[in-house]
C-alpha cells in the first residue's frame, strides 16, 4: 500500500489524553447503586496538545522521562488509546510492537501461537504461512514448535514473540521498549532488523530509554515533557539537549515530582532480567508450600549513577486478589550498600527465600531505585509468577502451624475413624445418620 510521497504517514493534531486515576478500585454496579455520588478520581493529563507530522520513510525517536507521555503518544498513534481531544491520522498499514508474545496462549503449541499472534499483529494466514519457516528458524525453536508454549523457557518465549513481530511488514512500525528485553545479542539483532526496515523506506517510530539505540536508528527525535513537545528536530541536536536536561534536572524538585507521578521509574537503570527458579520443582507448575525459591535479578545501569547514594534492588511478593503485598524487601533495608555499576554494565542480585504461603497464585515485582532518595529507576511488574499449592486444608495467606485440641464431653473422633453407636458411648447425633438423629429430636422439641 504505497502512499503518494507527499501524503504524510502520521499526522497528530492538538492531541490531548486524560487519564482518570481512581482513589479506589473502579466502582461496580453495587457501589454505584447505594452511593449515588461518583467515584473519587483525579485527572492526569498524559498528553497536553501534541502536534506532529511524520512523513513516509522517516525514523522518529520519542524520548522523555517516564510520565512525559511518550508511550501514551505511541499508543494513540497505534489506535490503542482514543484521542480525548484532537486527531491522529494514519496513512498506511500500521504494526505495533509494545510487548513480545502479547496474547500467547500457554496451552496452544508454538505453531498455533505463531498463527494466532501473527493475526493479532495484523498478518494474514497466507503471509504467516509464507514466512513460517523463517519465523521458526529465526526463533530457533524448530524442535519445540508443536509443544505448548507453556513449556517454553522465557528465552524461547521472547525469541518466538520477537520472530513473529519482525516478520510483520507494515508501512508504519511503532515500537515501544521492545529493545530493552533480552541480552545484548538479541538487542543487536532487533536493532539490525529495524534498521533494514527503515532502509527500505518504511516509517519507524521508536520509544526507548536506550538513547544509543535511538541515536543509531533515528534521524529525527521528538522530546516530550509533561505531555508536551519540547523539542523536535535532528537526532544529534535533540539528544544533546535532552541529555543536558537530564543531567541538570536530576536534582531539581520538578524532577522528583515527576518521579512521584510516574510509577514506572526514571529509567536511569533497568531491570534487564528477572528469573525465578524453584530447585527441584518446575516453576511453571504448582510448587508445594514452603519450597525454597531463588530470584535472580540482573540490573543494568543506563546512566552514570556513581556517587548518588547507591542502588537498591527490591522484590515484592503479592497475590493479585489482596490489596497489600504479602512480602516486600529491599537490599537497602538490610543495610547493604550497593555500588552502582558504570553505565552499560550489569550487576546481579539474588534473593533466596522460602515460599511459606498457602495455596494461590503469587506474583513477584522487582523494583530498582536509589537507596537514599527513594527515586525509582525501574519497576518490573509481574516479573515472575508462581503457583503454590499447600497441602493444608486451611485458607488464607500464611501457614501458622496451627494445632487444634478439642475439650468436648460429647467426645471427639479423628476424621478417619468411625464413631461407635450411641449405646456403646457414641455421639447422640451420629454423623453417619444425620437425618435419623434429626427426626428423633423433633417430637421432643
Amino acid at each position, binding site marked *: 500500500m504505497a502512499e503518494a510521497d507527499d501524503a504524510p504517514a502520521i499526522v497528530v493534531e492538538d492531541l490531548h489524553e486524560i*487519564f482518570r486515576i481512581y482513589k479506589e478500585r473502579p466502582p461496580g454496579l453495587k457501589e454505584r447503586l447505594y452511593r449515588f455520588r461518583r467515584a473519587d478520581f483525579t485527572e492526569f493529563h498524559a498528553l497536553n496538545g501534541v502536534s506532529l507530522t511524520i512523513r513516509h520513510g522517516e525514523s522518529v525517536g520519542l524520548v522523555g522521562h517516564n510520565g512525559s507521555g511518550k508511550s501514551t503518544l505511541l499508543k494513540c498513534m497505534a489506535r*490503542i488509546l482514543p484521542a480525548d481531544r484532537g486527531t491522529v491520522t494514519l496513512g498506511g498499514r500500521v504494526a505495533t510492537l*509494545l510487548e513480545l508474545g502479547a496474547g500467547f496462549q500457554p496451552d496452544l503449541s508454538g505453531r*498455533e501461537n505463531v498463527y494466532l499472534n501473527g493475526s*493479532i*499483529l*495484523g498478518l494474514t494466514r497466507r503471509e504467516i504461512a509464507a514466512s513460517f519457516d523463517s519465523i521458526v528458524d529465526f526463533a530457533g525453536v524448530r524442535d519445540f514448535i508443536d509443544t505448548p508454549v507453556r513449556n517454553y523457557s522465557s528465552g524461547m518465549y521472547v525469541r518466538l514473540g520477537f520472530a513473529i513481530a519482525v516478520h510483520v511488514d507494515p508501512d508504519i512500525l511503532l515500537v515501544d521498549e521492545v529493545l530493552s528485553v533480552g541480552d545484548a545479542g538479541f538487542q543487536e539483532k532487533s536493532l539490525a532488523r529495524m534498521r533494514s526496515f527503515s532502509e527500505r523506506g518504511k516509517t519507524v517510530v521508536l520509544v526507548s530509554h536506550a538513547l544509543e539505540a535511538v541515536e543509531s536508528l533515528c534521524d529525527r527525535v521528538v522530546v516530550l515533557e509533561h505531555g508536551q513537545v519540547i523539542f523536535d528536530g535532528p537526532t544529534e541536536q535533540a539528544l544533546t539537549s535532552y541529555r543536558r536536561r537530564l543531567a541538570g534536572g536530576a536534582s531539581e524538585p520538578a524532577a522528583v515530582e515527576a518521579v512521584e507521578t510516574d510509577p514506572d521509574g526514571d529509567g536511569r537503570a533497568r531491570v534487564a532480567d528477572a528469573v525465578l527458579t524453584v530447585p527441584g520443582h518446575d516453576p511453571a507448575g504448582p510448587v508445594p508450600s514452603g519450597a525454597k525459591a531463588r530470584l535472580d535479578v540482573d540490573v543494568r545501569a543506563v546512566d552514570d549513577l556513581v556517587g548518588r547514594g547507591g542502588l537498591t534492588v527490591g522484590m515484592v511478593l503479592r497475590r493479585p486478589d489482596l490489596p497489600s503485598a504479602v512480602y516486600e524487601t529491599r537490599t537497602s533495608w538490610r543495610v547493604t550498600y550497593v555500588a552502582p555499576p558504570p553505565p552499560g554494565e550489569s550487576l546481579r542480585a539474588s534473593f533466596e527465600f522460602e515460599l511459606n504461603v498457602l495455596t494461590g497464585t503469587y506474583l513477584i515485582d522487582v523494583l530498582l531505585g536509589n537507596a537514599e532518595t527513594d527515586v525509582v529507576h525501574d519497576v518490573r511488574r509481574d516479573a515472575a509468577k508462581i503457583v503454590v499449592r499447600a497441602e493444608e486444608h486451611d485458607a488464607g495467606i500464611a501457614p501458622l502451624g496451627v494445632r487444634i485440641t478439642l475439650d468436648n464431653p460429647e467426645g471427639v473422633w479423628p476424621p478417619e475413624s468411625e464413631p461407635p453407636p450411641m449405646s456403646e458411648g457414641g455421639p447422640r447425633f451420629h454423623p453417619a445418620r444425620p437425618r435419623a438423629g434429626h427426626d428423633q429430636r423433633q417430637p421432643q422439641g
Partner: protein
Amino acid sequence: MVATPERLGDLWVSRELLRNLVGKELKVRYKGSALGFLWSLITPLLMTAIFTVVFATFLRIELGDGNFATFFLSGYLVWQFFSNSVNSSVGAIVANGPLIRKVYFPREVLPLSLVLSQGVHFLLALVATSPLIIYYRGFHPELVPAVLIGLVLLTAFTAGVSMIFAAANVGFRDLQELTQVLFLGWFYATPIIYALFFVEDNAPQFLPLIRANPMTWFVELFRRMLYGTPAREGLNPPPAWPPLESWLVCGAWAVGALAVGYWLFNRLAVTFAKEV
C-alpha cells in the same frame, strides 16, 4: 468518534484474527481431554435426563404422544448456546485487559469469537443428538435450510446481547456475578421445560411477559423445526417449517439486538484500553 463503515472495514480486515480466536477457543477447550467434544454433549444430555425424570416421570407433564426428552432438548440446546455465549463474553474484555492495552484490534472480535465458538458447539450438539430427534420425531431433511437460517438469526441475536454484556462489564465489574442470577431467571421465563400452552391454560396473565422475552421466540422457532408442535393431548404434529410470524419476530430481534449491541459496544470500546 470513528464512523461505522470504517469500523466494519476494520472488522473485515480482522476476520483472520476472528477465525484464529474461534479456533483457539475450540482447541483450548478440548486440549488434554480424551473425550474431547463429547464433554460439550454431556451437559445437555445430563440436563435432559434430569428434567425428563423430574417433569415427565415425577410431575407427569402431559404431552400427548410426544416425547419429553426431545421436547426439552430442542429448547435446551438453543438456550445453552445463548446462555454460554453471553456468560463467557461478559468477562471477555476484562480478562483480556493485557492484550487490549498492548495491541490494537477491533475489540468486538473478543465476544464474537466466543459466540462463534459456542455456535460451533451448538451445531455439533445438534448433529450428535439428531439420531434421538429423528428416532422420536421423524426424519425431516427438508428443514435443514430452515435450521441454518434460524441459526444465523440466533447467532446475530446472541452476538448483540453478548456485546452489550461484555461492554457493560467494563464499567460495572460486578455485572459478571449478576449475570448468573439473571440467566437463571431468564431460563425459567423461557418455555424450555414447559410449553407455551401451559402458560395459556394455567396463568394467562403471564403470557405477555413470556411473549416479550425474545428467547421465547427463538426457542419456539427451533422447537417447531426440531420437535414439532407440542400438544397436551393426542397427536403432537411433527417438525415443520415455522410460520412467517416466528421468522419476522426472530428476525427483528436479531437485527435489533445486533445493531444496538454493536453500536453500544463500539461507543464504549474506545475507552477499554484505559479502563481495563
